[in-house]
């Protein structure tokens, strides 16, 4: 797209465009909501090397390498991804930055799609980074560029902290041209790049000095804007989207909008405290700005009026301002939604996770879950995921539970489930660790849901995708990998052969020892099933609801004409033909369209589909 054109971008696309215009050359990420779209958008720029790495830690390290080589580099990830990357981050940030470096962190106030609500501004400060917070897509683009300029000028890594609402919100953006930046190259300098004592002793002071210098920039920078209103004794300090939600109220206060939330200029805050009687801080999640101001010895208020959790929308901001005595009456209304039927997410039609969890539910096993689409097995009707903590955690947790159980005489078999993406992300050390103090009296079964993709975030490749899709280049074979580690009892199943899969899981969970079952069916969204849809013959259906209990979107009980009892039905517009419902039906009432009913007996191999029948969507 040509420069100076005005277009509509999401915040994520704004960051990507900013990286492009800033002359960025190396970008890495691991997919996670709300920031997935950043790297996907960067991939469109051919000048840039980009990759979805196997984890956020690797992505951060790739970006560090780019920066060491003297080119502008960025790692983007969701907030909890920074936890994975925190080890290299906390040490890297001590170095004097060479090529501009930006860590883009996507926070998720309100947890629309995350397992926790951590405020990564805290981590940014902890790592001695400057932190910019954009509030719309134009700022997402502009601040990303500015972050690189600051990073190179002050030789420090910068954090751009963006919230999920801004990531996904679309606003107009004026595009600019790409400015190529000359690569500085890497010059050997062990004091600068080898982080061991005593090199690190001096660097503690350097880090402090960089932040002190940045405070001077914070005073004069256009990133921070003071909008003064006449006749008020109150100034609100805020940032990001909260600023725009506040402006919606046209409040009778001055506003100091921080584009850079760390560090904050003490000089400016002291000036504000002289000119205004009241300083109110409005920020989502933790009192980061509020505490910074208080550390300066200036009194202000914030979290006593505004929630520490969730998003701050216009209505809740107005409510807080009334409590704070800044405005008298509410103009907006708080009407909350009436109770209506909930719509929790569910496995897609044709999802290969469905038969696995239907089987685990029927076998009544204790299941230690992990992060991915299969986390949804915790919902009704499966309720077959008894814990979910973080990426790859199921391996260690399962082992620890088993050891604890063993010490107190509990020999309950444990099942652990993990996807291929999560396995390559942070499961591998856990898989190796199972070999340590292995006890064959324990009954542990690890089911690897090898669907060839990072499905929950929209189908990005994993290290196993190359076995399936031509455009993906990593073809790690999980069975070979586990055997190479030294694991025995590694089995592969095709879960669309329901009975055979059930038999394997039953056998392995009923005997002691560690076993591994790799479920080979790929994601139904990325790899479409090319089969006839199925239908229910209501005259055969006995209404047992075995199919209903697989919770497939097109299957529900229905009133048929001239039949008194409710019978099952399948919406042909949604069915993809995976055959799982037909295989759990005890009376062969579910049959594929266009085939003679005799051909639809359940549990036979004819439901198995050859791999060459499955085509990646993008080859269509």
């Amino acid at each position, binding site marked *: 797209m040509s420069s100076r054109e005005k277009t*509509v971008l999401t915040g994520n696309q704004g960051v990507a465009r900013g990286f492009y215009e800033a002359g960025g050359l190396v970008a890495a990420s691991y997919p996670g909501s709300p920031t997935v779209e950043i790297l996907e958008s960067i991939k469109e720029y051919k000048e840039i090397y980009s990759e979805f790495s196997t984890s956020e830690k690797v992505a951060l390290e790739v970006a560090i390498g780019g920066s060491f080589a003297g080119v502008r580099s960025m790692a983007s990830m969701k907030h909890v991804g920074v936890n994975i990357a925190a080890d290299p981050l906390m040490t890297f940030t001590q170095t004097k930055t060479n090529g501009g470096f930006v860590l883009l962190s996507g926070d998720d106030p309100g947890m629309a799609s995350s397992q926790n609500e951590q405020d990564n501004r805290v981590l940014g400060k902890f790592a001695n980074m400057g932190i910019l917070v954009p509030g719309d897509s134009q700022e997402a683009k502009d601040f990303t560029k500015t972050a690189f300029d600051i990073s190179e000028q002050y030789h420090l890594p910068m954090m751009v902290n963006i919230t999920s609402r801004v990531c996904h919100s*679309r606003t107009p953006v004026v595009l600019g041209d790409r400015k190529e930046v000359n690569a500085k190259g890497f010059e050997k300098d062990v004091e600068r790049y080898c982080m061991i004592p005593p090199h690190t002793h001096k660097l503690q002071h350097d880090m402090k000095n960089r932040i002190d210098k940045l405070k001077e920039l914070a005073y004069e920078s256009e990133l921070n804007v003071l909008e003064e209103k006449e006749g008020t004794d109150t100034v609100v300090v805020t940032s990001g989207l909260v600023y725009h939600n506040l402006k*919606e109220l046209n409040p009778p206060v001055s506003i100091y909008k921080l584009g850079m939330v760390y560090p904050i200029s003490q000089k400016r805050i002291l000036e504000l405290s002289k000119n205004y009687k009241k300083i109110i801080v409005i920020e989502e999640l933790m009192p980061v700005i509020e505490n910074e101001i208080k550390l300066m010895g200036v009194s202000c208020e914030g979290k006593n009026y505004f929630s520490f959790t969730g998003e701050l929308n216009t209505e809740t901001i107005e409510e807080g301002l009334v409590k704070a005595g800044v405005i008298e009456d509410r103009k907006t209304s708080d*009407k909350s939604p009436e109770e209506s039927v909930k719509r*929790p997410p569910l496995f897609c039609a044709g999802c290969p996770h469905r038969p696995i969890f239907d089987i685990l539910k029927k076998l009544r096993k204790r299941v230690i879950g992990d992060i991915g689409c299969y986390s949804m097995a915790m919902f009704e009707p499966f309720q077959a995921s008894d814990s979910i903590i973080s990426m790859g955690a199921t391996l260690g947790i399962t082992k620890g539970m088993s050891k604890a159980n063993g010490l107190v005489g509990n020999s309950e078999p444990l099942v652990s489930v993990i996807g291929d993406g999560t396995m390559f992300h942070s499961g591998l050390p856990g898989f190796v660790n199972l070999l340590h103090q292995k006890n064959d009296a324990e009954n542990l079964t690890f089911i690897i849901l090898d669907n060839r993709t990072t499905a929950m975030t929209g189908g990005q490749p994993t290290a196993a995708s190359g076995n399936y899709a031509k455009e993906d280049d990593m073809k790690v074979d999980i069975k070979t990998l586990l055997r190479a580690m030294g694991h025995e009892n590694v089995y592969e199943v095709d879960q669309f052969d329901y009975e055979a899969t059930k038999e394997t899981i039953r056998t392995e969970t009923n005997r002691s020892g560690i076993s591994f079952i790799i479920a080979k069916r790929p994601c139904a969204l990325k790899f479409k099933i090319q089969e006839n849809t199925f239908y229910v013959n209501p005259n055969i259906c006995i209404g047992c609801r075995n199919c209903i209990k697989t919770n497939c979107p097109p299957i529900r009980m229905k009133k048929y004409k001239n039949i008194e009892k409710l019978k099952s039905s399948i919406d042909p517009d949604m069915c993809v033909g995976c055959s799982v419902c037909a295989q759990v039906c005890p009376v062969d009432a579910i049959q594929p369209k266009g085939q003679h009913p005799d051909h639809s007996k359940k549990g036979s191999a004819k439901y198995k589909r050859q791999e060459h029948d499955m085509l990646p969507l993008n080859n269509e």
Partner: protein
Amino acid sequence: MDTVNILLGGVGGQGLVLTTDIICKAALKEGYDLKSNDVIGLAQRGGMVWGSVRFGEKVHSPNIPVGKTDFMLGLEPLEAQRWKHLLNEKSIVIVNSKEVHPTPSLLEKVEYPTDQIKEFYESYEHYVSDFSNDAKKLGNRKAANTILIGIMARFLPISVETWKKTLEENVPPKAIEVNMKAFDFGYNQFGKE
């Protein structure tokens, strides 16, 4: 002019994000300031999704204030009714009546609230039909959302040329023709035969 507030509700996988994008781009072409919202993530697996577009001279927040919704585009009936509290008596409700049953009704824990949804329609100026079926007749059931846009376009200060150009630029090339037909069906034909 006052800011126009459009709310969208649907089920993950129904194309809500693209629909939101198209409305934004049409508003920008017409020279308006705008902001949109859409919630994705966990919700994309058959869960509830919603979005909003606000356009006008100057838009601050992407969030529609409670009771200020001008248009409710329901990609699915229950997901339109869910946002009733954000509507007012003048809101115009445009809904694809093709039901997608959520887990609680698939499992027969609750009934799909067909009657309440009918009552909901009756409270507003409404345009409701199985637009998936209409779109299927026009060539592709996935063009249903464009029929909703076509109906809404009757009321908006955005020209037909702008809508069509925006659709052309943002739907897959092989789907342009059916989307033009779907827009025309919504704009000129639906409810007028």
